[in-house]
């Protein structure tokens, strides 16, 4: 085995000659450092993308109007199947895998056990996602991608699909006010498809009226009275949260306010509306 002693000068000379002959030089420190920085950069990018996915997922999960699922779906399960942001959940999972891969390929990444790298990547993405969500990034990102891409179903598009459905008693639109010659309590609403509805607002309360008077796009829950001419009986009005840029705090407040209203309806309305046109909503559990 110890033949190396006799070969030692040969190998050394061979290598040194080859270094000289081929003009070999140690690779630049800059190139080596840039590879390391690139790996950390990729790791950061994957964690950031994971955090963005979490931000959108949190936005969807926390600001979906769960209180209305009885109105738009047959059960909570079918509602969740429809609204879960699969794309973002899948993206988060893929980004976590890439983050682990990138971290493992940094200079000292191999020293840490897989569960620590995985755990830290997930926690960082979740924490970053929570912060971005609080800053309204999830909401904005979902909406912006939805505006730019026809293929992407943003929460706004999804909500529009659920609510622009007059046959089922739901409309999205803007109140245009009372038209000349139309007696109160009938007002006019132009829905998302451009149809003008003659809307009976007799059963709306003060909060509903204030929302209508804001002039912004709203969601209306009620009863289809006639398709042609378009006539609708309004039972409740809710803001359309995608109409303008709301802070996450405002969105939270809006959601709480709507939940309180629904609770008040549930407690106060049965005796009043049992015989009215909105009674079916009470029976259905929407209020």
């Amino acid at each position: 085995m110890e033949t190396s002693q006799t070969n030692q000068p040969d190998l050394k000379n061979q290598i040194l000659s080859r270094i000289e002959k081929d003009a070999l030089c140690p690779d630049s420190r800059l190139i080596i450092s840039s590879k390391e920085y690139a790996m950390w950069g990729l790791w950061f990018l994957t964690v950031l993308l994971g955090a963005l996915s979490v931000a959108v997922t949190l936005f969807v999960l926390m600001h979906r109007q769960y209180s209305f699922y009885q109105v738009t779906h047959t059960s909570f399960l079918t509602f969740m199947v429809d609204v879960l942001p699969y794309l973002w959940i899948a993206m988060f999972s893929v980004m976590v895998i890439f983050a682990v891969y990138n971290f493992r390929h940094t200079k000292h990444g191999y020293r840490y056990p897989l569960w620590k790298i995985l755990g830290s990547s997930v926690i960082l993405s979740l924490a970053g996602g929570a912060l971005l969500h609080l800053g309204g990034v999830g909401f904005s990102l979902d909406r912006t991608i939805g505006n730019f891409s026809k293929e992407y179903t943003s929460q706004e598009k999804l909500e529009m699909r659920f609510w622009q459905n007059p046959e089922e008693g739901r409309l999205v639109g803007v109140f245009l006010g009372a038209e000349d010659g139309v007696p109160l309590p009938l007002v006019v609403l132009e829905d998302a498809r451009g149809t003008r509805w003659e809307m009976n607002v007799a059963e709306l309360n003060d909060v509903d009226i204030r929302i209508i008077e804001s002039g912004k796009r709203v969601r209306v829950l009620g009863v289809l009275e006639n398709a042609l001419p378009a006539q609708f009986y309004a039972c409740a009005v809710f803001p359309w949260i995608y109409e303008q840029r709301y802070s996450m705090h405002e969105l939270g407040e809006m959601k709480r306010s709507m939940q309180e209203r629904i609770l008040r309806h549930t407690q106060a309305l049965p005796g009043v509306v049992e015989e009215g046109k909105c009674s079916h909503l009470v029976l259905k559990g929407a209020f």
Partner: protein
Amino acid sequence: MDNTEFQLSDEEIVAMTLREHSSFGFIIERYEAKLKRYIGRLGVRNYDDQADVLQEIFIKAYKNLNSFDTSLSFSSWIYRIAHNEAISWYRKHNVRPEGHLIADGEEVLALLKSKEEGVEAAYDKEVNAEELGRAMEEIDEKYREVLILRYFEHKEYEEISDILKIPTGSVGTLISRGKKQLYNVLNQNALRI
């Protein structure tokens, strides 16, 4: 070569080499025998092949000198290169790694009697280097690699972690499982005899 070379640390020689390439000869002299023995144990057995692989190891080490991380020992760093070169050599040649364990009595004894990592049932039968060498060839590659580094190259866990690029905790686990598998193979081979 004068005596000052022997007093210099590997890291100092690396720094010298970056200024003057001929200093790399000190590194070659220091590591040639060790790495030759190591790649032989990993499966590069033929003399010419060993010379080729050694040359590639040192050339690669030279070209990557700037990536040497001083938080590692130089020994671990160059062993890592040697390990990777040996693996790529036998993958390129499409051969199964067959170790050529040059184990003296003390190494065999250390491997089999060691009770570290919870392997309680130290092998108590008589075994010689040849039998052990055969058994080592039969165990999984991942176990053979750590056992070679631990018991034949006498590397510490952290060094093995740096050479194989695995967490230190995994080194202990692999050694423990490797020894169990080795005992099983030795027992099976003994039964066959």
